[in-house]
């Protein structure tokens, strides 16, 4: 029953034009980045190596597909949550606004199953977006710029990863990015349970992400205690896989925080959706 219900929800997502905004947006942005890096990539390289070039010489192909993929993910991972919220913030509130929620809830399926199927559908949609991001950045990056070692700029220096040591880092990086995007999708879905129109949950999700990001990026001691508990702090956790050595404590902590957010938000949405009054 849950599979059939999830399939139905996926069909609903597929038939909505807004579902393609995110994917189209990613494709356009990545195409622009690929073009810009092809034309003016050396400028970006000078940002990375410039501080060392007074005394050191860098040999080898620095501007390659791996670096392009890394740059793209770094740039897009901040914006993709907003594109995810466009779709997942509408899953319940959209049906409430159109009145189809009443029809949906007359089916011989429990409300929890319906909500769970919407959650799974939003996870699958998020997975497709991540897959699209991975393909465009990783595959097209390598196609246009070739392969090579990955040079990563950290706040305390440079790390050069050998080519054969990169793919698994991207794989796990995308996996944890998926988890962080599912957190956003769950937030939008939860807010969607409280609203009768689509705009509210989408704008509120964006507002929360914006607020948390601002708090997280402000270097004020007053926020030091709450910063580790903001999910936006852990949306960049994919970067932990580009540390050497890997800091498993940080990775597991980020995963725990994101899973905790998903669990709490899902519990709230279950409670709210099961109590939702649909007769008015």
């Amino acid at each position: 029953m849950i599979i059939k219900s999830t399939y139905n929800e996926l069909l609903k997502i597929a038939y909505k034009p807004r579902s393609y905004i995110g994917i189209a947006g990613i494709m356009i942005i990545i195409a622009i980045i690929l073009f810009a890096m092809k034309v003016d990539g050396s400028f970006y390289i000078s940002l990375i190596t410039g501080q060392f070039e007074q005394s050191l010489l860098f040999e080898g192909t620095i501007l390659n597909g791996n670096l392009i993929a890394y740059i793209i993910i770094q740039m897009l991972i901040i914006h993709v949550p907003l594109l995810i919220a466009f779709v997942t913030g509408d899953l319940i509130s959209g049906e409430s606004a159109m009145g189809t929620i009443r029809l949906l809830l007359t089916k011989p399926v429990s409300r929890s199953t319906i909500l769970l199927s919407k959650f799974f559908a939003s996870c699958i949609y998020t997975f497709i977006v991540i897959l699209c991001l991975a393909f465009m950045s990783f595959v097209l990056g390598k196609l246009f710029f070739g392969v090579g070692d990955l040079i990563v700029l950290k706040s305390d220096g440079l790390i050069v990863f050998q080519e054969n040591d990169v793919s698994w880092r991207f794989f796990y990086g995308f996996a944890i990015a998926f988890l962080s995007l599912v957190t956003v999708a769950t937030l939008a879905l939860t807010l969607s349970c409280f609203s009768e129109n689509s705009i509210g949950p989408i704008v509120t999700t964006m507002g929360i992400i914006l607020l948390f990001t601002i708090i997280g990026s402000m270097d004020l001691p007053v926020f030091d205690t709450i910063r580790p508990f903001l999910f936006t702090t852990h949306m960049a956790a994919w970067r932990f896989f580009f540390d050497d050595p890997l800091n498993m404590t940080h990775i597991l902590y980020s995963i725990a925080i994101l899973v905790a957010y998903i669990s709490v938000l899902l519990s709230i949405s279950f409670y709210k959706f099961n109590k939702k009054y649909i007769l008015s």
Partner: protein
Amino acid sequence: MLNLKQLLFLKLFILYSITILAQSPRTLLNQVQVKLNKATNYSADINIIVDLPYITLMPINSKLYYKQKDKFKIDTKSIAILPKQGFLQLNMLVNDTVNYTAIFQSKEIINKIKTSLVNLIPNNDTSDVVLAKLWVDQINQVIIKSQVTTKSSGTIKTEYIYGSQVFYGLPDDIKFTVDIKKFKIPKALSADINTSKTTKVEKKFGEINIKLKNYQINKGIADSVFDKTN
């Protein structure tokens, strides 16, 4: 009490010694130059180990090509980091008898090897090199240590260990010690998480160790090898 003859002899001896010392550094460098010029071209397998502050890089294996006078290439698909004034500068300094004056400073023993410390001072102030100190092994006529201070790259210290190819003056092991200026990068550019402030670290030193083996000397290397597009 010294008599007139003894005084005259002493004066002549001092004059002779000064003349010998004034001539010997250039002579010594000429001997080094002759030795280095025996290898008109060579290639070697190299292993580069980088130990620099702010940079994490695994050791890489690569191939080095050199052809007189100034053709040099490291053939690598990996990212390699080398000192900016590395391989060619010393050859250039030793070969340049016009723009640099060689002055003998002292005799030193380094790793049980008797060396002459020769200073190279530029003859004009437009030179990038401010001062080059070369420790020359008098017996094998090779440079075993150098310290080159340039306006653009700071000071680079280099130590050479010779083995099978000492006849050509080619080392088996080179250790560069380079200045690394303070590294400062905005948080926004690095996009790190869990770091709250911009990192500022004071100037430090780093080492780049290059091991060379499987030399192929004077076997001929095509100019196309040094083409940047290859």
